[in-house]
């Protein structure tokens, strides 16, 4: 039996409440972290870092954020792109107006600013529900994009509305701008991911998480047992926007290096991140990662298979990508409507019996 839960008893509640009650999982997790931090930088090459791993990490943060709002608190949002834009532009303004401010602070502050905007656009959620809310959040999406495009102050009056990230560094290593080293940026993003994922886990397993899930599962009952709907929903919007803002800032400063709001943070972004959490699994931290991995990796893999290995014309390959990604999404839903996270769970059930199927 590779994977065992049996004989793993808890003597205190504190122990029982920990993230990975099963020792096997816990060690697996620590080993994974070690690999990511120590071995990762050594074996992963620039191409995979810049083209695949960085976007994966950054989108994972966005997915975490949206999953808190949609998966845990049940408020479907299509404003993600707009909120990422807030993060990006906040970081740009902060970087250019306070050149000496540490990039870490900048990123965190950008998250904070986004949180405030998120609260603002979260207000209608008290009265608007379900798909109506989803569509309502598009108002945020379109308005924010229009705003950043229209008001020159946001892009420092540059001739074209493009914003470019100036060089900033941590401990003397550049993580944005021309001389950024992929491995440093990787570790930088990875640290954010780990901390934020851990934070999300804590938030969702504790009192707040229960409030959110109560609202999600039955808002009226929740209110009657003493959950303040407005406060709870707004907390969800704030935290979620904080995450999304950070990912927006990283996307702009570390990954893209330059961005234009309509192009980089358009409606497609909102949908992309939503796809991630639904494919990955609503209300699951692991799901956020799985979904991000799927949406980032799948196209690259398919491209490399079709163009690289089979030598197809790039356009046919690209069309085929759509067909296959779409097909896979449908297939997954038919096989396991609750996303990759649920698939993973079933896999573990099987693994528990392995190699002795009954």
């Amino acid at each position, binding site marked *: 039996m590779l994977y065992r839960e049996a004989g793993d008893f808890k003597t205190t509640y504190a122990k029982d409440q920990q993230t990975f009650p099963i020792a096997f999982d816990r060690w697996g997790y620590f080993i994974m972290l070690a690999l990511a931090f120590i071995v990762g930088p050594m074996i992963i090459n620039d191409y995979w870092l810049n083209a695949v791993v960085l976007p994966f990490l950054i989108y994972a943060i966005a997915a975490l954020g949206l999953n808190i709002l949609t998966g845990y608190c049940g408020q479907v949002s299509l404003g993600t792109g707009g909120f990422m834009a807030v993060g990006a532009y906040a970081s740009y303004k902060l970087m250019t107006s306070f050149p000496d401010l540490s990039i870490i602070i900048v990123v965190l502050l950008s998250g904070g600013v986004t949180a405030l905007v998120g609260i603002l656009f979260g207000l209608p959620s008290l009265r608007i529900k379900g798909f109506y809310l989803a569509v309502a959040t598009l108002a945020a999406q379109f308005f924010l994009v229009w705003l950043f495009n229209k008001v020159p102050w946001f892009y420092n009056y540059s001739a074209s509305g*493009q914003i470019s990230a100036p060089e900033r560094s941590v401990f003397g290593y550049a993580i944005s701008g021309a001389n950024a080293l992929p491995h440093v940026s990787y570790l930088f993003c990875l640290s954010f991911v780990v901390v934020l994922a851990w934070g999300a886990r804590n938030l969702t397993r504790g009192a707040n998480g229960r409030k959110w899930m109560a609202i999600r599962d039955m808002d009226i009952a929740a209110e009657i047992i003493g959950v303040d709907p407005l406060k709870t929903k707004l907390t969800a919007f704030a935290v979620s926007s904080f995450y999304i803002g950070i990912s927006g800032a990283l996307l702009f400063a570390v990954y893209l290096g330059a961005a234009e709001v309509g192009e980089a943070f358009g409606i497609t972004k909102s949908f992309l991140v939503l796809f991630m959490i639904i494919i990955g699994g609503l209300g699951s931290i692991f799901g956020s990662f799985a979904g991000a991995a799927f949406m980032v990796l799948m196209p690259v893999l398919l491209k490399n298979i079709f163009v*690289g290995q089979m030598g197809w014309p790039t356009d046919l390959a690209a069309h085929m990508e759509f067909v296959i990604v779409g097909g896979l999404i449908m297939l997954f839903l038919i096989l396991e409507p609750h996303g990759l996270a649920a698939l993973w769970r079933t896999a573990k059930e099987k693994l528990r019996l392995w190699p002795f199927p009954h």
Partner: protein
Amino acid sequence: MKFTKLTAVAVAASLLAGPTVAELVFPSLSYRTGPYGANGIPFADGYSDYFTLVNERDGGIGGEMTKVVECETAYNTEKGVECYESTKGMGALVYQPLSTGMTYQLIPKVTADDIPMHTMGYGRTSAANGKVFSHVFNYPANYWNGASVAVNHVLSENGGDIAGKKIALVYHNSAYGKEPIRTLEELAKKHNFELSLLAVDHPGQEQKSQWLQIRREKPDYVFMWGWGVMNQVAIQEAANIRFPMENFIGIWWSGSENDVIPAGDAAHGYKALNMHAVGNNFPVFADIQKYVVDAGKAAGAGDQVGTVLYNRGLYAAMLAVEAAKTAQGIHGTAAITSSMMRDGMEALDMTAAKMAGLGMAGFGPEFTVSCENHGGPGLGSVTQWDATSKSWSQISDFAPSDMDVIGKLIAEDSAAYAAENKIEEGCK
């Protein structure tokens, strides 16, 4: 670092069936799919067909075979990054990102990786200042030249005096669309014409408001900085309000067959700017037919040959090849590196004789590139659409633009960039 770089090359190569090292690699970041795919296809075809021609007819450049590595970006900046990263390790000589967004994010990268980038008629206009943007070239013309060329055309039509005339700019509400505004405002001051701005939001399928406004204000001329579906709708709407098409002038990205054909006969007389010739009555096309299309080596279906955007791709490829030749001349080796390629581009000198020698006499303007000026002379021509023969025709030769206005703007903007990124101006 070294080690990972090598593996990067190895992996990327294995991923994309990499070339043997001896070839000259020209990556083509094409977009044959997505909202703008229709425009990306002909350009990509033209670009790679020319290199195929060079291989088939001349046996490569100075004996070195060329290889075009195509990578689909779908006009999406993030795919663009992926493409850049996956191809840069393969000895890429010059990038042609075909998207202003990608240009902006590649500028620092190419500079760091010492690979030149050619943004022909798009990208960051102020990159014309080579003292700041050492690795970015945008010859022969940029958006600000375009704006000025359009105004000059209007001037010439009105005997040099357009005081009090009304000109409306219909622009794609994005970085690209906003590019000409500053220039046009300057020119409006200079020639005191009235400029009114009409933004159209992406994607631009619904432009009733804008065209009703134009119908109300009755401007004498309408300029358009449009892209994708916005072009077709705008031309249709202009026809609907019966705006005189010959007074409707689009930038070179609003001047392809794709943009006018959906409107049918209504589009007759519509004008667009260009920085190269249109049509296929050049000797080079015979060669392309012979060595590429008939040989079944065409990049696309071969049905695009001679279209505006195909020619643009062809032209871009030709300039790249000439730059490569120049580089080979300077460094006395056939197997040039990207850094040598940069020198070649900076020393590029396009003479009429050269173009004639290539069977492309008068295909583009004559110009020379220098460290101070990566943007060329900013010459542009005006073309007009004939709906009956379904063909574009060049109605003016490559005319200069108002450099004393534009030069100032370029200096300002590049200085700002230099300051923001702590670059001190200078030539290598």
